[in-house]
């Protein structure tokens, strides 16, 4: 009987409802992040730093729900970003996937404390920018490296930290989980 009730939302056992909520939150958060990073950027004042919201969502998810799930969100978010970008298909998947795999490999060293998570956010953001810049450069785009690093990457890393902290607490509220439940996996 319980098996049949499981997909029925409010009638389902508590754990199943939580599982469905994670799925819904994750499924809504990724497209929202991509729209925020692209359409939202239209309404940012000129010169303001632009955060890598897709990456920030994947990292916040990794701290809350486990690093393995964070990798999944990074791959999905990377694909959506590729579809919204002039960059060649696969570049964001590669950049975000590598960044989250790096975070996963570092284990508790980075995920276990706030200083570690902030360092991981900066390292992951820098890696994403480096991979994407290199990919575009190899594809023949004119890249002014010093200007790109100074005017885009460094401000973006700062914005990533702010957005990352906000998303971490937002996810906590939405999912009702603690950091400890996710960081151990």
């Amino acid at each position, binding site marked *: 009987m319980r098996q049949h009730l499981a997909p029925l939302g409010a009638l389902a056992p508590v*754990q199943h409802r939580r*599982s469905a909520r*994670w799925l819904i939150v994750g499924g809504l958060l990724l*497209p929202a992040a*991509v*729209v925020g*990073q*692209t*359409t939202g*950027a*239209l*309404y940012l*004042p*000129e*010169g303001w*730093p*632009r955060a890598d919201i897709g990456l920030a969502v994947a990292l916040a998810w990794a701290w809350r*729900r*486990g690093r*393995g*799930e964070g*990798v*999944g969100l990074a791959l999905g978010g*990377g694909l*959506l*970003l*590729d*579809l*919204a*970008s*002039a*960059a*060649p*298909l*696969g*570049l*964001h*998947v*590669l950049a975000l*996937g*590598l960044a989250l*795999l790096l975070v*996963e490999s570092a284990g508790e060293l980075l995920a276990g404390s706030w200083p570690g998570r902030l360092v991981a956010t900066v390292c992951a953001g820098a890696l994403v*920018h480096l991979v994407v*810049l290199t*990919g*575009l450069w190899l594809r023949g785009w*004119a*890249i*002014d490296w010093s*200007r*790109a690093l100074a*005017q*885009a*990457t460094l*401000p*973006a890393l700062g914005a990533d930290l702010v957005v990352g902290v906000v998303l971490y607490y937002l996810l906590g509220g939405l999912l009702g989980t603690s950091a400890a*439940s*996710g960081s151990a*996996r």
Partner: protein
Amino acid sequence: MRERLAAHWAVPRWLAGVALLLAIVLLLVPGAGRVAEGWASRGVVGLQAAVAAVAEQVRGGVDTMQRAAELRAENRALREQVERLQAEITQLHELELENYELRQLAGLQPLPLRNELIPARVVGRDPLPFVQVIALDVGSEQGVREDMPVVTWRGLIGRVIDVQPTTARVLLITDASSAVAVRVQAPESRATGVVRGRNDALLLLQYVEQQAPLETGDLLITSGLGGVFPPGVPVGKVVQVRKRDQDLFQEALVEPTARLGQLERVYVLTRGALEGQ
């Protein structure tokens, strides 16, 4: 139970590795996944267009409420201006036709006089902050092709670099990869040069001969050289001239005439209606 669910959702490393390998293959093989990208991008662009439309409505509504009295007066003034401009357009059409017929009589190649415009809404900027690219809600299904120029009524904003069935991406003139052949509009100069993007709000004018008259405030228009941009589209105004005796050419900083930071509605210029005649 929660532990089992979480473990079930986690992406195994081997699967992540396969995904990354697939991404590398897509990057190395040009055109791979193009069809799938075209279909999948419909959903993303649809979402972006919906959000952009709502944001435009909200911003418009707030703006209208804040400036109601001012807008009434502005509306009256604009109506008068429209009537005056309509009369001027009629005169210009007459001159256009006269010019076309005179060129034919003189045995000259008729100029592509009229470009058709495809109106488009800007639905997003590129997620990469160091790339000056915007996405439009029109694509090949609406007749957009690669290399078509994109303008606002203020002037040139860029050219189409990527077309999907329902979306197109436009490389703005402020991108470091962009170069536009221009000339000074002032009849006493008509100096030519190339305007390049710097990934910021200003453009760099290069390759203007040392002797050519170039001054702050000069309006630059497209020269038509290179064949991508039609001649006569406003590009920018010179804000600072850099002229040194030891250099072969002079340079200048240029402010785009189009407000590239506040793009909402733009027009894709198709080839001229008279070009095919």
